[in-house]
């Protein structure tokens, strides 16, 4: 199989995941509704309660910080929800069909990771646009990089999810694992609290430092409000970007390894 065939397979797998989006309309409508509630009622209420002065520059309040946090958690949750799709596919024998096709295993792993990540990102595009509007920020370069970062992040998370689901091979374990993971990863990050605040609790702080969600959300914040947020981010913007790419490349490699070496049909519990 040459490069042309591989690219065609990759493209078709991405299309496959995108074509699944319509099956999840209800799920996404619910998430969007929850997002709207969070950025309006909860966000504004919390902004009234949280004193942000002394942490970042004047003119920036907790609401600015919170908006990116909500978006990041949404993107993470929607990417993680791919786990349930993959589990369902396994249960229904879909994986056996995909494994039988004339597609290289590494292309299969990459295609599904990128397709799933892209689908998750597209689900959140309306939320991203709402944030731009709420912030009143339309800096083209910042928007472009943030979109790219969101894509890389969701592809990474989806690759991780696929690797784990295909290793667990159990719908019950998948439900429990990702339920706990979704809750833990968001909480052990800088999604809702800045690194300087959580630094007082060492385990929490160090967990957030290695958490890709922290790097993603803080990268978004510094992209739009560099001067205001650079001092409270988990790392330098370039480091955060490198971390995100490393995370995506790492989990994509893991997904390739698992799909190439371990995955086979049947045996789903």
């Amino acid at each position, binding site marked *: 199989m040459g490069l042309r065939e591989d690219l065609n397979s990759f493209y*078709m797998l991405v299309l*496959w995941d995108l074509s699944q989006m319509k099956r999840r309309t209800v799920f996404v409508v619910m998430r969007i509704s929850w997002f709207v509630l969070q950025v309006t009622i909860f966000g504004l209420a919390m902004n009234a309660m949280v004193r942000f002065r002394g942490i970042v520059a004047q003119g920036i309040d907790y609401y600015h910080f919170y908006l990116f946090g909500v978006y990041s958690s949404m993107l993470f949750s929607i990417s993680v929800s791919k786990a349930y799709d993959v589990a369902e596919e396994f249960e229904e*024998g879909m994986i056996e069909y995909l494994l*039988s096709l*004339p597609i290289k*295993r590494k292309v299969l792993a990459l295609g599904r990771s990128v397709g799933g990540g892209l689908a998750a990102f597209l689900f959140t595009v309306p939320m991203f646009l709402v944030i731009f509007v709420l912030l009143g920020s339309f800096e083209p370069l910042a928007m472009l990089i943030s979109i790219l970062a969101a894509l890389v992040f969701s592809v990474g998370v989806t690759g991780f999810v696929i690797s784990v689901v295909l290793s667990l091979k159990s719908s019950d374990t998948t439900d429990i694992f990702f339920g706990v993971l979704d809750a833990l990863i968001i909480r052990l990050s800088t999604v809702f609290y800045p690194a300087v605040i959580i630094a007082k609790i060492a385990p929490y702080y160090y967990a957030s430092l290695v958490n890709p969600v922290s790097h993603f959300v803080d990268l978004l914040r510094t992209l739009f409000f560099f001067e205001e947020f650079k001092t409270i981010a988990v790392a330098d913007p370039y480091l955060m970007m490198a971390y995100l790419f490393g995370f995506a490349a790492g989990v994509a490699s893991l997904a390739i390894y698992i799909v190439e070496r371990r995955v*086979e049909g*049947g045996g789903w519990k």
Partner: protein
Amino acid sequence: MYEIIMGNVAVKIKDFVKTFGQTVAVDGLNLEIYEGEIFGLLGPNGSGKTTTLLTTATIYKPTSGDIYVHGYSVSRQGDIVRRYVGIAFQEPKALWIDNPYELLIWHARVVGYSSSEAKQVVRDVMEQLDLWEHRKKQFYQLSGGTRKKLEIAKVLIQRPKVAIFDEPTAQVDVLTKHKLWDVIRGLKAEGTTIIVATNDMFEAEKICERIGIIYKGRLRALGTISELKDMVPQGDVIEIAFDGPEEQVKKIISTFPEIGHFTIADHKARMFLNKGEEKAVSIVQALASSGIKVRKIMIQEPTLDDVFFYFTGARLREEHGAA
């Protein structure tokens, strides 16, 4: 009848073992399937047929041993093997994703057709299988037979060198069955090597040139249908109605050592032997030369059911010490 030409080996199964936890699904299977033949894999449920087929299609990995498709190892060269193999699953897959047309278009694109070619080939195959009218239906609206046809359509679109059909006509009506058999024969005519797993003896007799009987993960018998029938000890039955003394007939029949056992009653002799069609002439000649008038002769060979039972059921009793 088919002519069997032992050509190049398309699929070679060598010391293949597959276990799932403590369960041994296939236990040291050795088998060669030749290019361009229709090979039937017969066995009761749980005998290891589907496991063997799914491993050939690289969906399972061998626990030990290997399967080679056109010389390429399923274990080590799966990416290449998948270019040669197409499979129609026992249970239709992926049909809930979209309507049949969209699914087959996606399938066609994945197996290498361009967008315009895909539309054409999908239409051709759907029309060939009388699926065109169902193209926009949802999965739950399709009958079992239609779903089976869709599964087979994927293989027809792919046109692989080795086509695998896992119980292709299970739960389909007689008309559809015959249609699908014709389709499978058509693929063979184009040079495709075909492997069919089936429990349906009639189907095996209708379309398969050689058959392997698999039971408890092991190959119990292999050959053409007539070879397998000959393997059943005293499987043929010759029944001769005659006029003359029964004692004399008994003496004459006893002179044929190849007749395993026989019964005589009401001027009818029933003889159990192998290759009955070859022996019948000499038996009749012996009777006639002794003045016995043969009124009627009937030769009955074992059915594939008998063969299947002999190689699976009979052995089952032996293994349990009940035979």
